[in-house]
């Protein structure tokens, strides 16, 4: 009897949505479970790190890691799983690009902790206790993983074979990827397992976009009643579609919300935010410096808007840290 291929899942800095996405395969998940042997999935099954350590190197056919890397534990697990797996897949935006947790790169660890544990309005922490790397409680030594200053993508920590884009990847893309893995019909190493063409290509509103768009104002979705059929960019809303890889079938736009760029750029782009900026700003309907400043000024948080998912994967990776 041939052993079923061994599969593992792991969760780094992310929200859990990618785990949900696996379950979202619905009945297809049963086919997957039937076809493979899941050897590690902390979120769903009771395996421990030492179980993985005990496996032979390269014994796992494929490991899907979601989430960015920002703790010592995540880094260790990334290295460990890399060693044990023949194929390592960065699963979802956080793992591929840094994702929403990657926006922590606009800040430093101290202020992230201060906000989370002390100053946020919903926090009740009168003693101002912060997580400690080592504590002794009732005679027991307790430890927490260390927190890095910089959030990294999986491939900034270890060698990655494939990327499944999206926040989270759609069931369709996951199913196709699993199918490819099982049949061995995989593209070149380093590929993103989604079409290498921007989202507009598959957007139902594409035809409504004017040939010569000129943007006189940038609006937030909350500031306008959005027409449900017209190109969102043509309505003045920053839709990241032109600068974002397709494959999700423009799900957000179908829900009348602009694309926020979770699938990252095409393979030809090194910095999604910069390219989006270039496209949007060049369409501004003015040649006057003051007027341009007024129009683009409506983009209140350029990094949060243009690099919502891809700051750690961008050319600059993070806000510059000034050390005295």
């Amino acid at each position, binding site marked *: 009897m041939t052993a079923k291929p061994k599969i593992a899942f792991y969760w780094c800095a992310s929200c859990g949505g990618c785990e949900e996405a696996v379950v979202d395969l619905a009945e297809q998940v049963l086919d997957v479970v039937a076809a493979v042997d899941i050897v590690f999935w902390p979120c769903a099954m009771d395996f421990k790190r030492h179980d993985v350590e005990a496996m032979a190197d390269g014994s796992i056919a494929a490991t899907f890691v979601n989430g960015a890397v920002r703790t010592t534990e995540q880094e260790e697990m990334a290295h460990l799983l890399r060693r044990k797996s023949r194929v390592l897949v960065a699963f979802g935006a956080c793992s591929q690009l840094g994702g929403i947790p990657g926006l922590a790169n606009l800040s430093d660890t101290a202020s992230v902790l201060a906000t989370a544990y002390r100053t946020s309005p919903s926090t009740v922490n009168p003693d101002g206790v912060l997580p400690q790397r080592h504590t002794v409680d009732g005679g027991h030594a307790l430890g927490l993983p260390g927190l890095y200053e910089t959030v990294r993508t999986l491939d900034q920590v270890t060698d990655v074979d494939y990327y499944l884009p999206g926040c989270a990847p759609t069931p369709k893309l996951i199913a196709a990827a699993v199918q490819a893995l099982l049949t061995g019909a995989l593209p070149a190493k380093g590929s993103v397992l989604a079409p290498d*063409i*921007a989202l*507009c290509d598959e957007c139902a509103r594409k035809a409504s976009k004017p040939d010569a768009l000129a943007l006189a104002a940038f609006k937030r979705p909350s500031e306008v009643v959005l027409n449900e059929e017209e190109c969102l960019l043509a309505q003045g809303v920053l839709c990241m579609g*032109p600068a974002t890889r397709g494959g999700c079938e423009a799900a957000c736009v179908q829900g009348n919300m602009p694309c926020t760029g979770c699938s990252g750029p*095409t393979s*030809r782009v090194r910095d999604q935010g910069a*390219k989006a900026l*270039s496209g949007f700003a*060049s369409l501004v309907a003015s040649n006057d410096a003051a007027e341009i400043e007024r129009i683009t000024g409506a983009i209140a948080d350029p990094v949060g808007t243009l690099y919502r998912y891809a700051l750690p994967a961008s050319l600059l990776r993070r806000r510059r840290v000034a050390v005295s």
Partner: protein
Amino acid sequence: MPTPEHGDANAVRIGVYICHCGTNIAGTVDVHAVAEHAGTLPGVVVAREYKYMCSDPGQELIKADIREHRLDRIVVASCSPHLHEKTFRGAVADGGVNPFHFQMVNIREHVSWVHPDKRAGTEKADALVRAAVSRVRHHKPLETRRVPVRSDVLVVGGGIAGIHAALTLADAGKHVTLVEREPTIGGHMAMFDKTFPTLDCAACILTPKMTAVKAHPNITLWAYAEVQAVSGYVGNFTVTVKRKPRYVRDDVCVGCQECIDACVYKVGKEPDAFNLGMSKRKPIYLPFPQAVPQVVTIDPESCIEFKSGKCKKTCVEACADRHAIDFTQQERIETIEVGTILLTTGFKVFDAKRLPSYGYGTYPNVYTALEVERLLNASGPTAGEMVLRDGRTPRTVGIIHCIGSRDEHTNKHCSRVCCMYALKLAHLVQERTGAEVYDFYIDMRTPGKGFEEFYNRVAEEGVHFIRGKVADVYPTAEQDGRLILQAEDTLLGNVRRIPVDMVILAVGLEAQADAEDVRRTFNITCGTGGWFTERHPKLAPVATFTDGVWIAGACQGPKDIPDTVAQAGAAAGEALALINAGHIELEPNTAYIVAADCSGCKTCVPMCPYKAIGFDAEQGKAAINEVLCKGCGTCVSVCPSGSARQNLFEDDEIYAEIGGVLAHA
């Protein structure tokens, strides 16, 4: 990493050549060290230094190395690519390698000539060479584009430069449209009386050429017209020309001027621009007797029919059954297609009122040189009689040089023609009036054929030359209309105060007031002062940075008639060379869109000023028309999915260059 499209980029065999340019580069850059450094860079098979890379032996060096070392990429570090990129591409092609497998590094203009510190300069040269080496490995083989050139030519400006250029081209069988904004061609030269140093009469040598323009079957003359807009590119320009209404049909009027005699105005009341306001003209006029075309013009500002609609229209009666006068005439917009354009838009004279100490506009007996030209001219306001505004003949005349030239407060440049025309006026005034002439100069500049001889002649004729700048012009105590010229005589070392009846200001030359607008219309550049910039000050003095557009005459800088005519001939010759070739080779730096990659987001479409980007609604893709693309690359930088690309300026080439300049040696 191998890029499948370009083959294995690591397998390239690069040759690097560092030019000494004599001591121009080698003097401040350690060329030996730069070549040595280049030799250590990945992919570099040969790295040499040589005294003059652009010389034949220098180019042979490249060709021999290509053969011997099987080089497929070449880097030359020497001067600006604007000078020798073509030269080296040619050598590379002769050697059997695609000419675009070449990158040039500018270590002369951008390094050795601007950074005297040898260490810093060498370091910068190293960085630039590194950048080129890492860039050139990504270069793709390309071919130049051939664009056909229309044989029709546009000449803008009908002074002596435009006239000469138009006739040269027309005689060679090319069709020329000559556009002149005034009612007549002739320009400034038509206003002069005599020309230096030969003293031949300006009209005698100019008017036959003017008439020839009108008569030439290959010239369409549009006087009283202005170019409004130019689009297209070398070989294929589309030009729109606004033809202002004369209210006289130029196809019917024969220039008999009976209408002028018949005008209800018995005498002229409007200042005559051609005579610089020193005489009056009627509302219907011909600028001067030899005007070309011989068509009268009605000035609607002063014509009673236009002002009140109640004129007896005696002019129409006088014209009788010719019916040339047409008060309903409208401005006409004409569109022409031409392959080449010559700009010969001339100059304006310095406004002497800007220097109040010389009293121009305050004292009636202060004249500009151009006004004196008209006074001396037989068709001028005094019919050639050299008299003052009060009718007296001057007995003493002072000429002051360098008005509005060589002066920090006005123009720093030397206007080149003033010394000579001042000598000419000194001679003519003395000849016509017998007056004592005092000529105040700073330096007497007479570098031209027969010029110094003319100066000596005028000096022998008894003109008094005083070396010194006039500081003040003021009336005599007697209030007799005479003016005192006060100057420090720098040869005698004392202050001179010389009373004169008449002062002539040798005003300098300036760029036309609207040179800036003209420059924009034709997409060329202006230097300081508004003179049009030539492509190279020595080697391409009449070409511009816009292919297919030439400049000639005083629009490029102050110059005299012989130099103007020489430039006009040169520009016509260069245009002819292009027309006769029938096509032009264009840089292959066009942008293109990879259809498979394009999502059809249309961001690029409105970026293109030439409408070269079309959108195929059926395919849902944008595509670039290579013929219309001029290669700016703006669409490439804006494409949000990296699907637009540019030949010669591919993303990976530029990234490699950035990496190269920043890599630590």
